[in-house]
């Protein structure tokens, strides 16, 4: 019986180490970014003005009080060659709410379902033009509140641009990857890549739409690793 218990604990521990890998860290910004601009049109537009959520601003550099940089995609760039992974069954949602895209930056695995939703009580169009080969673009109109269209992008690509031409300030970006090991940094610059990333050596990249990209080599041991990135805005 004790043997059985020990075996169960060992199996559980193994499962934990396989399925609870956590690569965590922080993305920081060095330098002084240009100030964000107020998007006045969100309030002045006859429709958007009714649903605007506070003062809308551009979200190019969202920097926390301690310099943490939000909206940075962190992903495993090297170390997974030749491996394939099942596409997650959950959907990545990109919502249009208050005449802004939420979230501004998102990430998905190639082939994962992207649910594009309109939460505003009027029409938006969603114009997407991927640049990478194998990803198909589209331009669809979503006329009613609650309308959801599901799309997929079959190939990895950084920064696929989503735009609404009815309200041309509405922009969002989606990055797709050939593995499920990615994350987007939060408002404090913190990120956590979760999943069953096996122990081993990898190269991570932190990619920001404007600040650029930096890479870092890491080693995952016992399902854990830490990586901190610093991106720099050069003086003008």
């Amino acid at each position, binding site marked *: 019986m004790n043997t059985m218990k020990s075996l169960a604990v060992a199996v559980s521990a193994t499962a934990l180490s396989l399925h609870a890998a956590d690569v965590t860290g922080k993305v920081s910004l060095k330098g002084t970014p240009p100030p964000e601009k107020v998007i006045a049109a969100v309030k002045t537009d006859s*429709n958007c003005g009714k649903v605007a959520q506070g003062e809308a601003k551009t979200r190019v550099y969202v920097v926390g009080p301690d310099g943490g940089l939000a909206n940075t995609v962190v992903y495993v760039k090297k170390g997974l060659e030749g491996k394939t992974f099942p596409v997650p069954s959950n959907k990545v949602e990109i919502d249009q709410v208050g005449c802004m895209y939420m979230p501004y930056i998102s990430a998905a695995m190639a082939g994962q379902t992207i649910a594009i939703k309109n939460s505003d009580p009027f029409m938006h169009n969603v114009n997407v033009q991927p640049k990478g080969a194998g990803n198909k673009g589209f331009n669809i109109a979503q006329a009613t509140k609650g309308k959801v269209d599901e799309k997929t992008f079959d190939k990895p690509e950084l920064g696929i641009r989503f735009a609404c*031409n*009815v309200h*041309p300030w509405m922009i969002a970006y989606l990055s797709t990857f050939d593995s499920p090991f990615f994350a987007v940094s939060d408002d404090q610059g913190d990120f956590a890549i979760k999943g069953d990333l096996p122990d081993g050596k990898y190269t991570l990249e932190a990619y920001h739409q404007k600040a650029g990209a930096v890479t870092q080599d890491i080693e995952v041991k016992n399902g854990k690793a830490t990586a901190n990135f610093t991106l720099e805005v*050069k003086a003008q």
Partner: protein
Amino acid sequence: MDSPSSRSLYRFAVLTALATLGLIGMGGLVTSKGVGMAVPDWPTSFGYNMFALPVDQWFHGGVFDEHTHRLWASTVGLLVVVLTRWLGGSPSRRWLLLTGGMELAAGWGLLSLGPAWRGAGYFLCGIGGVVLLAGLAWFRSAPASAPLPALGWTAFGLVQLQGLLGGLRVVLDQWTLGNVTLGLLLGLIHGCLGQGFFVLLGVIAWRLSPARGRQSGAAMRSGTGGGCVSFWIGAGAALVVFQLVLGAAMRHQHAGLAIPDFPMAYGRWWPALDAEALVRYNQHRTDESTVTAFQILLQMAHRAGAMAALAAIALAWRTSVRRYGRGSGIARGTALWLALAVVQALLGATILWTNKAADVATAHVVLGAMTLLTGTLLILVVRKLRVSEPTEASRIPVPALAHPVAR
């Protein structure tokens, strides 16, 4: 050419040219605001027949600009069909009937292909119906003097080609040719052709102008440098065309302002274009686009082209004053041209100072079209003068140059 009917034809041609100038303004606004794809389908609008789009969907953000551009374009198309019939007189009926019949048949053909082609089918049937009606117009009229009927038919062909390009720019937006999207390429051609189409209508109106035949050449006096006048007007007009193509290329890339400051460029007279500098520029851009070295060079070429065009037009004015006298029609025409070019250059600078305000950028497009038309008319006038000089110089009619389209 001074009968009531010819005056009416002249006024109608002016109306068509002015409507086209307004259409260029509306198209310019669509591009300036970046709302060209707000209506994703064509020739239908959100699946509706273009002319039956519910008003609440029309008056909505960028849809208003794009859909108004489509309706305005349809109106210009209608005006051009009438103008073609009027210029061509009764002999044009046969060709209008033939063309309208073929378009109607093609429209019916598309309808039979299935629901996916229904919108295009109805649209083509509509165009064919209008052309057919123009051909059926029974009143008898003599054709205008050559080459006006031919110019009318050219406008007839161009307006349909222009409409098709505008539609394909929407439908084929996602397609690529190498690294360039067809949306960009067709938008660029659509923008340039629109300017050429306006010039054609302006030339038609000018040729119909009663004042064109009345003004005498008494204001002219002989002098030196007549060939210089012709050269500088030609050079100025060529540079205006160059500027229009560059401007269209810049606008249709939707890259925002490749250089945000003026008269300097990123704080220097000539901006650094190395990789490190480009990273720096892009990091400090708060709009979503990323600028390339090519786009920066394009704007620098546009700046240099503006200075060259201004210089050529100023020399055209200077030489025409010396050759024909300050009070001559040609000197007044070149003075007007120079004034347009100066305002145009100031508008160009204002685009940069206002971070590409849509109304300023659109005014720049409209004034560009007027500058091109003025240059074209001056070329025609000078050519006529040179053909007649020197023996009949005193009897040569000097056409009205004070922008006949805007009369």
